[in-house]
């Protein structure tokens, strides 16, 4: 009667735990199969660990890394933290690649400090580690491959000085207290402007804050307190976008020269319209490419520079349709779909 029902239900239940695992078996095997094909003849394995995997920027880095890998005949294993921007998750990814025994690691650390212990562990087990994109407080790295932010700021300053003919009043809207990369851009901008006696910096102590919203508000306040000025520089995408909105609201996009840093769809559209006069662009594809090359060079015993600049360029409205600019604005990601 009822004696066998619970036992049967229990037996069924015990298989239930295994079901989700078994169901994913083909997926797992598939994922594994692809990889073993790629690394059929003992190619060097380079783990490339971004800060996240969903942003366009990281996809561009991935495309660059993959391009270098194909050219050099090595295999890139691309794996970011399971939770975007989660330090602990990135630590775990690095540890697991150390276990796996990859030949080299390219790490874009989420944190200047927290990623140092796992990087040191990799180094301790003979795996060379290249740091890319953001700096890490750790001495044993092969190289630091990233944008020279100070230089990017200088380029913006020189471009603005040239647009103004070496004469005028300019505003710097800073990004965020404690953000190292943008602070370098701001300093670079001020250094370049300081070389032009005719240009006066009328405001350089306002911060845009982390969000577009806060940048918008800070920009409105700035425009309110300075009715007349000739040029503006904003050191990142959100600050530039907030300023753009404020300039549009007050109808002053044409009266002042405006230079931003980094691109977004809206900023590029504004650049095309001439509402933004120039954008400073980084090169994430080149960053992925150069970082993988640095790592492979070290493994193959070649000398590697301790600091590799991945380059920045200033793009003016008139240059937007040049092929090299288009390559930066919408990088070719087709290599990732092969």
């Amino acid at each position, binding site marked *: 009667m009822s004696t066998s029902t619970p036992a049967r239900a229990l037996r069924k239940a015990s298989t239930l735990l295994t079901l989700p695992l078994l169901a994913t078996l083909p997926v797992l095997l598939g994922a594994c199969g692809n990889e073993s094909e790629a690394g059929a003849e003992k190619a060097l394995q380079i783990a490339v660990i971004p800060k996240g995997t969903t942003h366009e920027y990281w996809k561009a880095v991935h495309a660059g890394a993959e391009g270098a890998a194909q050219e050099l005949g090595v295999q890139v294993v691309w794996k970011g933290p*399971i939770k975007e921007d989660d330090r602990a998750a990135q630590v775990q990814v690095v540890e697991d690649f150390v276990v796996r025994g990859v030949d080299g690691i390219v790490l874009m650390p989420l944190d200047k400090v927290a990623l140092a212990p796992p990087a040191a562990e990799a180094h301790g087990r003979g795996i060379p580690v290249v740091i890319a994109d953001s700096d890490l407080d750790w001495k044993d790295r092969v190289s630091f491959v990233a944008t020279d932010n100070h230089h990017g700021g200088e380029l913006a300053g020189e471009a603005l000085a040239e647009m103004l003919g070496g004469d005028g009043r300019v505003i710097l809207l800073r990004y965020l207290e404690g953000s190292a990369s943008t602070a370098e851009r701001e300093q670079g901008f001020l250094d370049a402007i300081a070389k032009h006696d005719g240009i006066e910096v009328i405001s350089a102590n306002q911060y845009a804050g982390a969000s577009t919203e806060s940048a918008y508000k800070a920009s409105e306040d700035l425009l309110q307190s300075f009715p007349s000025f000739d040029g503006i520089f904003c050191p990142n995408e959100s600050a530039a976008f907030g300023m753009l909105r404020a300039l549009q609201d007050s109808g002053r996009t044409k009266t002042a020269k405006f230079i931003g840093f980094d691109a977004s769809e809206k900023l590029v559209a504004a650049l095309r319209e001439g509402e933004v006069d120039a954008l400073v662009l980084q090169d994430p594809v080149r960053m992925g490419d150069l970082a993988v090359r640095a790592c492979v060079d070290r493994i193959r015993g070649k000398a590697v520079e301790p600091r590799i600049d991945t380059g920045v360029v200033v793009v003016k409205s008139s240059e937007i349709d040049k092929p090299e600019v288009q390559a930066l604005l919408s990088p070719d990601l087709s290599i990732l779909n092969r």
Partner: protein
Amino acid sequence: MTSPSPSARRTRLQQSLDTFGPFIGLAIVVILFSIIAPSGFLSLYNAKTVATQTVIVGLSAIGMVFVIRSGGIDLSVGSTIALASVATALGMRAGYGEIPSALIGVSAGALVGLVNGGLITRLSLPPFIVTLGTLGAARGVAKWLGDEQKVDAPSGWLQDAMSKSADTSVLGLAPGVWLMIACAGAAAILLRVTVFGTWTTAIGSNEPTARLCGVPVARMKLAIYVLCGAAAGLAGVLQFGRLTVGDPTTAMGKELDVIAAVVIGGASLSGGTGTILGAMIGAFLMATLANGCNLTGIPNYVQEILIGAIIVGAVALDGWRARARAAA
């Protein structure tokens, strides 16, 4: 009278399944990955790595066993871990040294537990709602204390607690792993031998009856949530050691891993069951899964789908078991 009745035999079968189910699950995961993952998965070094990666979820799961066994739930553990890691970092930065700073971290966790337990017992609110509230609030306090940033601090030997390098590990394992094992042992004794454990089970099995039998339900619940908070707090202290910074954004969604570990370990979300050993195996299974996925280079979305499937599967298993129990 003396010969075992059919129902007693069924109970034994049920018990053995409850006990060995998690082991079977773990064995399947290990076998699966030892086939498909590259060499290195089955190495001693990887075992140490996974053990270290288990600690945060494992320690939190110890407290969660008591909560779930008493018929409750605590969704705030992820945020509590973050709050404790920030509190510990602030202690270290203020120069209080390792032990006092760790105590600050554990106390911060216990405080969250006290708020949870207080709201649940005084206002008679469902634990799900209360801890959903403190999930947000504790995260907010962590960000507030950390000034919306990570907190840099000298980590001292707390960092070594989660390091498995030769000069800091004890008998080959990171000190944090031994701490987890010791806490698990103490908790198992508390649960099995003491009246605290008996009362916890009584509340989870049938709260009105427990009250009639003279179990101080409100005080017990308060103590259970404080225990859970303190366990998450200790996990937060070790998270600080692992990251070497106090991170208000860390362990987001970790509560799901913790609950999954406890449920995979044989606990029922309707209360009355769940063991420490099972939860430890559950936590180890979750860590092994993540580790295996990383080693194999499986894309993140596959890993997320997999973990989601495991959680649903484990809860479905709980439902089946509950129904089987009701039928028996």
